């Protein structure tokens, strides 16, 4: 036991400061956390989705590549499968969205036997050239959207949908 004994007044002071401090901290910490939260959030790395398509297997002929990602709609999680028409133009890989710009049907490559080198929408006979440019005189009013592409271990990765950059 030391000589300078803690008086009742001091003891109460220490205790109240301690407990009060904890309480203040308990209230302030979440506030601070909320305030700086946006800065702490990690950005998903470009949101690229892996596909099972090997880059080396691609040719100048567009092929349909399916890819699946998880979509969260409020509390409902679901796996969404989308597709892209992918081909090589020289060395660059081009991935086009299969969604018709007219009313959102799904288009097919060479779907119309009269136009074997164009994308075709069966709903209203919309046509697109290979680079996604809409053929004038058919219902679609704009070119097909494009996907960002990347490569990982020789496999194709697809990213965000962007407006067509080729036309």
């Amino acid at each position, binding site marked *: 036991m030391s000589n300078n004994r803690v008086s009742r007044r001091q003891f109460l002071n220490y205790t109240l400061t301690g407990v009060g401090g904890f309480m203040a901290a308990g209230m302030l910490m979440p506030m601070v956390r909320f305030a700086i939260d946006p800065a702490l959030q990690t950005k998903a790395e470009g949101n690229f989705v892996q596909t099972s398509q090997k880059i080396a297997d691609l040719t100048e002929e567009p092929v349909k590549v399916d890819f699946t990602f998880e979509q969260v709609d409020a509390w409902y999680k679901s796996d969404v499968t989308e597709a892209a028409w992918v081909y090589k133009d020289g060395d660059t890989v081009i991935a086009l969205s299969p969604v*018709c710009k007219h009313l959102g*049907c799904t288009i097919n490559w060479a779907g119309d036997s009269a136009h074997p080198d164009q994308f075709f929408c*069966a709903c209203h006979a919309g046509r697109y050239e290979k680079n996604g440019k809409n053929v004038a005189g058919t219902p679609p009013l704009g070119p097909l959207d494009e996907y960002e592409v990347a490569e990982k271990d020789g496999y194709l990765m697809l990213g965000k949908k962007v407006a067509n950059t080729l036309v």
Partner: protein
Amino acid sequence: MYFNVKDVQQFEAQKEFIDTAIVPLLSLKFDEGIKQSSSAAEYLMSLTAFIEQQFKGRLMLLPPFSYTEQTKSGLFVPLLKEELHNVGFKHVLFLTCDHSWTSLMDQIDVIWLPSIPLESMDKEVKKTVLEDQLKQVIPILSSKWTQS
């Protein structure tokens, strides 16, 4: 197009392009056939959703008309067809896994598809199966569309 507000707004604006209605007819059973019935329901809903995805801009998929053995007689399908015709759907197609509707073949366009149990399949197989089934429906749709 689905029967939801967003799609219906688009439908109102682009009415001349969307001339086909797809109506699923869904048989519900609650006795010993309940499992089979749920499997058929799952199949029919997946298939119609897939058809919708392919031909979004040309057809509207209505919510399924469901009935049980007892309530089936209250469903006047030819009348429903008339009603849809009158609001501008040139083609009204009924899709069902219930074979009994084929007896109305001379009054309405029924596509009867035997149900395939999808629940035991993994995703890849399921997709191929649905794609194969879609290939059965496409010729029917395109023959309808070229007629008009």
